[in-house]
């Protein structure tokens, strides 16, 4: 079953189109990177899933059901523009937000106490938010996003402003939540986060989805069929279907070369050839990074 299936979603504003007829599927229990340049339509899409705004056309289904107000308690949302009531106490704030998401008073109280203990901020329960450090406020925001055990968690630039320790804490928590069965949607510009955490990609540009699918499949789709070789002694590819793109001497005898090969060529065969002509120290396929793919697609799109 899919966590989200979007069909023909469009959203127009008076002066621009935020989303144009988009379709996508998000597998259950996946960590999805929602990528795209600023103004591409990511926030509009996130707000539609959160039912803050409704699309002009199209439907969203969530875990097999048409999206409806009752699903609010199933979703945890950490917006990019996030904040807390400065004058409210930490405990009040957490229980209030939990109750707005549909928890009972008792439940809200128990869970928030358990979470502040887990995040080691229990002694701040009766302090006002304005007295907290930025890092602690971020912990509170994160707790309030996941406290009601949502099946779908939407995090918009979750690490912006987080120090490395908090970022690590939250990364661990995200992975644990996925283990427990949650689906996580990340909207971020940080490609290293995408590389490290996401297993599914959704790339939006100019109100349209230009790339969707599993990260591994996308990677192989964008293979450049080039291999990087470290070797001792020069060699020649004239008699082979391979092209030597460049070859640089990095130490006295050691060279670093890039080799382009036909798509259907088996890596073993390439390696056999290399062994026969030179002393191979390393051999690795050069895969594109998500950042490379992002830039090539978005720039290519802009040129059209």
């Amino acid at each position, binding site marked *: 079953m899919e966590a989200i299936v979007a069909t023909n979603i469009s959203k127009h*504003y*008076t002066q621009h189109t935020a989303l144009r007829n988009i379709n996508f599927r998000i597998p259950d229990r996946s960590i999805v990177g929602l990528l795209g340049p600023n103004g591409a339509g990511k926030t509009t899409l996130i*707000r539609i899933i*959160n*039912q*803050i*705004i*409704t699309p*002009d056309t199209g439907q969203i289904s969530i875990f097999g059901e048409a999206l409806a*107000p009752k699903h*609010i308690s199933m*979703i945890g*949302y*950490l*917006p990019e*523009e*996030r*904040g*807390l*009531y*400065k*004058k*409210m106490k930490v405990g*009040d704030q957490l229980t*209030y*937000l939990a*109750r*707005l*998401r*549909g928890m009972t008073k008792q439940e809200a109280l128990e869970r928030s106490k358990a979470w502040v203990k887990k995040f080691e901020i229990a002694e701040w329960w009766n302090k006002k938010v304005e007295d907290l450090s930025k890092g602690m406020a971020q912990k509170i*925001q994160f707790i*309030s996003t996941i406290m009601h055990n949502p099946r779908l968690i939407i995090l918009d630039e979750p690490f912006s402003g987080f120090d490395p320790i908090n970022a690590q804490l939250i990364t661990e928590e995200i992975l644990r939540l996925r283990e427990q069965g949650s689906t996580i949607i990340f909207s971020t510009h940080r490609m290293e986060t995408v590389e490290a955490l996401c297993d599914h990609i959704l790339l939006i540009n100019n109100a349209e989805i230009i790339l969707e699918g599993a990260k591994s499949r996308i990677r192989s789709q964008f293979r450049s069929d080039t291999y990087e070789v470290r070797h001792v002694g020069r060699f020649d590819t004239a008699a082979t279907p391979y092209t030597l793109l460049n070859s640089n001497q990095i130490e006295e005898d050691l060279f670093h070369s890039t080799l382009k090969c036909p798509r259907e060529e088996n890596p073993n065969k390439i390696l056999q050839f290399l062994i026969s002509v030179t002393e191979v120290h390393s051999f690795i396929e050069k895969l594109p990074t998500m950042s490379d793919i992002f830039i090539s697609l978005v720039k290519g799109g802009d040129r059209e």
Partner: protein
Amino acid sequence: MIVNKILLVARQEFRNRVHKRSFLIATILIPLIFPAIFGILIYTAIQQEKSSTRKVVHYIDESGLFKPVSDQFDFRPFNGPLEDAKRAIAHDDSFGLLYIPKFDLYRPQGIILYSTVNPGMGDIGALNGLLEHLIREAKMRDLQVDQSVLDRLSTNVNVLSVKVGESGQEQSANSVVMSGVGMLFGLLMYLFIFIYGAQIMQGIIEEKTNKVVEVIISAIRPFQLMMGKILGLASVGLLQFLIWIVLITVLSAGLFFFFGIDMSQGQAAGLPSAPPSQNGIAEILEVWDQIPITFLLLTFVFYFLGGYLIYGALFAAVGSAVDIPSEAQQFMFPITIPMLISYMSLFLFILQDPHGQISIWLSIIPFTSPIAMMGRVAYGVPGWQLALSMILLVGGFVFTTWLAARIYRVGILMHGSKVNYRVLARWFMMRN
């Protein structure tokens, strides 16, 4: 579900406000502070009058009528020509120089007060009174009129106004008391709506700049958040009003008890009871008893809620549209105009002429009725006018809430955009 969430927000809003120290201070101290300030001012004014030394006034009397007898002034004759006297007062610290030339008793002209400063109205009035009294005595001698004859000529009439009810029962009415009550309630209404309306706006701007609002509206509808905040604050206002009523009742009961003993002592001492026309306090107390206090308070609560909800919704819309309070000014102005109109009308003509055409219409139109009706209601308002006004008030707040909610839902998510009326209209028309 929808109502539950509204109540949840309202309760939170109520708790946040009531637990603030400023609420406690305002609620407990205001009913004590205002009478205290008033009392202190009166007390110091009396003390000042008592302790002030008599002002020195030199005089040159060429008429031969002047008698230098006064509590307020220390009159000293000046012997010499007027020009010398004028020069003299310029250099000493006397109040002035009163020059009384020879004049015709029946056309007194040419009396002048020379002084180095501009004298206050009170001093000039006192001098006028003194001179008028002297001339009057001189005239009486001239016309050979006896004081006792004059006393018998003077009459004091005080029309007692009695309101006749439909079933023929009579109520004595005192327009001074009525207008006092109207003024008090109108003023309270104006303050309440303004203070609480501004608080709604501030709260919403705070939520917007805190950026907490997006988290909240991903859990509940913007309308629920707006209504919850408005209702929460309304209940804070009602609580405050209730506490004030209780405090004032207890305080005034204490005062009446105190004065009550005083009056009975006076009677026990066998003092002659004053004629009814002069017994002001007793009359006021009698009329006070006739005023349906419970009815007035209930009407006040209704119009406070109605007026607050009408304006509160508009203030909420303004708060959602702007990023900082100073941007709100341009939108606040048109909202406050009907309030100002009704507030000024209250003093200009509603209290003087509570049953005039304009007064009636101002008390029926929803935007002006909360203040205008409170000015009229103590005088007694026909049932149909009250009913029409109340129905329109409810309709008015449904309308402004609908209008405000459409702007609010878009506005709270907009940051940094330059907002004018055209933009507001576009938000209003926008589909969700």
